[in-house]
């Protein structure tokens, strides 16, 4: 899943970026409001983590601009302002969630995952398809009860496909949601990772779950 992190305090920004990436998210980061707004308007993000007190363009202004332009990206607001009025103001301005600093990093990850699930209308953290089970909270994958070890990138790709199960997903969409903005786009990298996933998920005797729609992309479903 692709996250945009807009935070001005460099140590926090760098750390959250690293932690979120290690948690399996593709993360783009912006250090001020102007760069953050530009990125938010340009990219397809699953969640935007937005610090309210930003230089150049205030976080509330970014939120307002996103909603005015019709962008429905889920926004998680981070702030040191902890009064009830501040929270109400933030939520009324279009934020989907509100987290007051300081907070536990695990809580941030959990809230981001919850927002991602909301993005794809999935309330259950466990995604199921045929005999495939993906626990998005524990970040574990099992097929027919057998645990499957995946790399962070493979897991991110599978989770994205599972969240859009039954729908054809283009390579561009996969790229936008699984890879970071600055990552070098290579023509076959998505195909390579799809191949890795197929080898790990499919076993002799079990039906394939990832299907290719030539000229369109990929689809995760029980029957091809």
């Amino acid at each position, binding site marked *: 899943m692709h996250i945009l992190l807009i935070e*001005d*305090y*460099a*140590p*926090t920004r*760098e*750390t*959250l970026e*690293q*932690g979120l990436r*290690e*948690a399996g998210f593709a993360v783009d980061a912006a*250090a*001020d*409001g102007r760069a953050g707004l530009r990125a938010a308007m340009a990219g397809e993000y699953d969640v935007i983590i937005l610090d*309210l*007190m*930003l*230089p*150049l*363009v*205030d*976080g509330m202004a970014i939120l307002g601009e996103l909603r005015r332009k019709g962008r429905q990206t889920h926004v998680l607001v981070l702030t*040191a302002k902890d009064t009830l009025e501040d929270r109400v103001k933030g939520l009324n301005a279009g934020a989907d969630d509100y987290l007051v*600093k*300081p*907070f*536990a*990093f*695990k809580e941030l990850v959990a809230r981001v995952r919850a927002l991602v699930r909301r993005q794809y209308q999935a309330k259950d953290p466990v995604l199921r398809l045929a005999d495939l089970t993906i626990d998005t909270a524990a970040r574990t994958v099992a097929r027919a009860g057998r645990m499957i070890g995946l790399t962070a990138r493979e897991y991110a790709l599978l989770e994205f496909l599972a969240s859009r199960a039954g729908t054809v997903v283009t390579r561009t969409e996969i790229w936008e949601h699984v890879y970071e903005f600055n990552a070098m786009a290579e023509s076959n990298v998505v195909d390579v990772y799809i191949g890795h996933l197929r080898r790990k998920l499919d076993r002799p005797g079990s039906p394939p779950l990832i299907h290719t729609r030539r000229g369109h992309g990929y689809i995760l479903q029980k029957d091809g």
Partner: protein
Amino acid sequence: MRSLRSQMTLGAVAAAAAILLAAGAILFALIHRTVMNEFDRSLLAQLQALKSQVDVEGGQVRLELDKEMLRQFGPGRGEDYFELWDGSGRVWQRSASLGAYDLARGAPGTVRAVRLPGKRRGRQALAVFQPAMDEHDGAKPPPRETPPPPVTLAVARDATAVNDVLEQIFWGLATVIAATTLGCAAILAGVVTRGLKPLHRLGNNLRGIGEHQLSQRLDAAGVPQELRPVVDGLNQLLAKLDAAFARERSLSADLAHELRTPLFGLRAKLEVALSQPRQAAAYRKTVQDCLAIVLATQGLVENLLALVRLDAGQIAARREPVRLSALLHAVWEPFAERAAARRLRVTWDDDAATVVTTDRERLRLVLSNLFDNAVSYADTGGELCIRAAPDAAAPGVEIANSGSQVAAADGARVFDRFWSGDAARAGVGTHCGLGLALAQRVMELLGHEICVATEAGGWFRVRLRFPAAPIPIPEGRAKNLPPGLSPGRCQHEQETP
């Protein structure tokens, strides 16, 4: 606790009682003197009347009394007395009312209080005179007879009745004074209570103003003229308190935020570091990052502490000659590495001979903050210019960095504590914490000047001036600055280093 009401009441009652007592005493003394004078006059008149009745007949001194007088001095009435005696002490005659009692001997001409038979109080007058020879039968005294010796006639009168009347007058006056005093006390208590009501209302209004109602003001309407200055003074005090509390709250909130931000940075770094096993190098990097955050936070706390001490007047300034150029280079040294890391081009224009009289350590603190700001907020790959040179009026220092994100209009506000250019906190250029506020307070303490000239996207310049005679700037610092210079803006703002 002493009550103003009881104090005022008691004071007024005591004053009224004293006045009444004095008036009563004077009145009584006048009455007493008048009555006694009349009594004495009557006694003296009687003495004169009796004196004219004394004569000598046949060598015998005698006092002839008519019937009326005999009754007056008779034993029945017992109010008037007389006694006649000569120089040898021989008593020639005494009134029947005296019985065997002797009147007091003494000097003639005065009326004095005496004790009379039955220990009654009375007054007595006496006269010494030569009695006349009896000429009743018309015969002249034989020429061979020697003049009769002088005799003393004493007349006394019982003063019990007069004293009783005076005593009654005394107690009557005392009763009137006491009653009047009590009445005054009651009336004064009421008057004082009524007079103090505005003060009570003022006290109640003041009690109703808590820490969170400092924006309220006392209503001066209906307040007596004498209390107006008090109400005005209290309202001014409330305004100052309100402003001070607002400043404190704002400072506390800003400080909490300034501390919360690095603390959260630390927490996030440690939590992410511990979230999974890592190589030693990764842990080392985390520790280094945490150390950098701690050092930055320590700087913030030290600046804050210095500011608090400056505000409390706990920091005194020394005076010593300081070579500006040498100090600038010494303070710059620790920042050179950071400047290089940010690819800043640093240019120097300093006169090695420039010497100023200042406090070296305090000025070091100022320069350190200015260098820290310049290196932190200059645009990456930008420029930093340091000048130290004698000026036409006074030596000066200018530290300038390119890439300013503070607009010219906001130049003066960079000295405000925790001011941030766009109501948001940032670590990239527009945020001002405590460094410039501290620099300004220290420069004030030293009697020097500091100002800022800035242009968004251009240069951010801080200038220090060291007038030969330090300028005392306890308050209202702008009025003490030379014409054309303000704490927030320098002259020649468009000048490029």
